[in-house]
């Protein structure tokens, strides 16, 4: 069983439930599960969002007191082992055509070397890993995905890559990120997707939801070119049982 998380006042109108101060798969599952549980409860929160290992819960400070909120959360937290709770219902499994290496992932070889595997083995391993949307942040719709096998605990670069394009797949610290827009990054750029991650005119605006699962399936350059002109970058999805 995980140690009981901390409940910390966060500004005037929120509390933070922190499951851990370091990233672990268990702490993230707890954050996702607890956030979903509170969202579906009748507790007096106006907004619930989870990050890698914590949950931020906003409330109306004129309607409900901090002591009351803390007591309600304490009670919920004690009901079960949130690190062992099932992931929330309604998740999707996405298969995302991804072009690895070459001009679409110029640091693939470097990342593979840091992981101690060949480039082909890296594509096999990364291209079949079923990863979870750990959290969405940094930019709207931008997913942090994990947790990759331990050999992918590769460090961030000390210098920033000035610019990777929208849809770039990057890797570090056993996680993937896919960029919603062209961006600088300290993570290594290994592949390219054509995912439209965020579109304010679409409902839902974010393609992914927290706790969705994703496989970045390797495709050829020709298939990727087709994906670029196909809705959702040729990504397909199914409901997770």
């Amino acid at each position, binding site marked *: 069983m995980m140690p009981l998380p901390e409940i910390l006042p*966060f500004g005037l109108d929120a509390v933070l439930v922190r499951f851990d101060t370091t990233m672990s798969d268990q702490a993230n599952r707890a954050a996702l599960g607890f956030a979903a549980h509170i969202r579906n409860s009748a507790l007096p929160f106006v*907004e619930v969002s989870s990050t890698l*290992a914590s949950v931020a819960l906003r409330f109306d400070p004129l309607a409900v007191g901090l002591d009351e909120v803390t007591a309600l959360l304490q009670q919920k937290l004690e009901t079960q082992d949130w690190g062992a709770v099932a992931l929330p219902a309604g998740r999707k499994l996405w298969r995302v055509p991804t072009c690895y290496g070459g001009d679409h992932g110029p640091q693939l070889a470097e990342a593979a070397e840091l992981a101690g595997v060949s480039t082909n083995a890296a594509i096999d391993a990364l291209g079949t890993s079923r990863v979870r949307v750990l959290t969405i*942040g*940094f930019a709207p719709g931008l997913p942090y995905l994990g947790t990759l096998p331990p050999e992918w605990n590769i460090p961030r670069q000390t210098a920033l890559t000035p610019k990777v394009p929208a849809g770039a797949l990057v890797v570090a610290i056993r996680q993937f990120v896919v960029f919603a827009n062209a961006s600088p990054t300290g993570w290594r750029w290994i592949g390219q997707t054509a995912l439209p991650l965020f579109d*304010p*005119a679409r409902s839902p605006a974010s393609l992914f939801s927290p706790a969705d699962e994703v496989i970045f399936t390797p495709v050829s350059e020709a298939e990727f070119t087709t994906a670029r002109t196909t809705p959702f970058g040729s990504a397909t999805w199914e409901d997770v049982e």
Partner: protein
Amino acid sequence: MTTLTIHRAGPAMTVQDLGREGYLSIGLPRGGAADRKAICESAALLGQSPDHAVIEMAGMGGVFSVSQPTRISLTGAPMRATIGDRAMVWNASHLLIPEDRLTIGPALSGVYGYIGFGGGIATDPVMGSRSTHLTCGIGAALETGMTLPLGPDRNTDRVGMILPTDNRFEGGTVRYINGPQTALFDEATRARFTQTEFTRDSAANRQGVKLNGSGAGFATADQLNILSDAIQPGDIQMTGDGVPFVLLPECQTVGGYPRIGTVIPQDIPKVAQAPAGAKIQFTCITRAEALSSYQSPAGLTRDLSALCKPLIRDPAQMADLLSYQLISGMITGWDA
């Protein structure tokens, strides 16, 4: 339908309201007006709810006209406002008729000035708000030649009102409360933080404001190994070298830099409105103290409404105005 025409747009003019809530879990911050109090002042002057969208002008105004007689409010950072040679009183409401060209110049103090409209700006909401959020690709900056729709005005009688001004446009003391990461800073660093007089850097936008202090930065022991966590407007975040940034409505939803505390919602406008070079000092208060003066936008608007007074022309000022015009006429005569 009444429309607003922008004959000249300043460089950073956008439509704003109180922002969009409910999207933190997909990484979209609330956004909305940098100075939410100015939105409430506008709503109070016009006798409508603070949900109405306004035009936010960063540092510089523009030239505007309307297609039908329209009530307007001028709030936030005081700016030089004129219709022809008539100076328009700030923090007040006025009637704008189609023949008028409302000209708004640079901010005289503060940063963000606002024009409100009876009925509000009626652009199509995106994800529940009319707020432009440029870094998230929602909406666009207002440009010269644009025409915007205005909503139906349901309170046309209330015009020519004025609100007392406050002093939130030149920095000063800003109150904050401790947060989830305050304990990462040792006591000496926290004490030094509240003893330091900061200067608002020239680096500032709707995401945050950088502050410069003299002396060492305000780092924590393990500054670079903090797990990214939820962040919110008002958070006082220490970047890699321990330089404080106060986060504003367009801040990201997740961040990895340690935060010494959170500026209370009531004082965020003072930070946003502090012009470059303004002095800011922080004072740490308890949550109970912070809560005692906290109001919802609706509550603040209600209280401000009670402070609105009819805008009466002061005869002394009118005399001044006349003499000013006479002198100006004489100068024109000499020039000719």
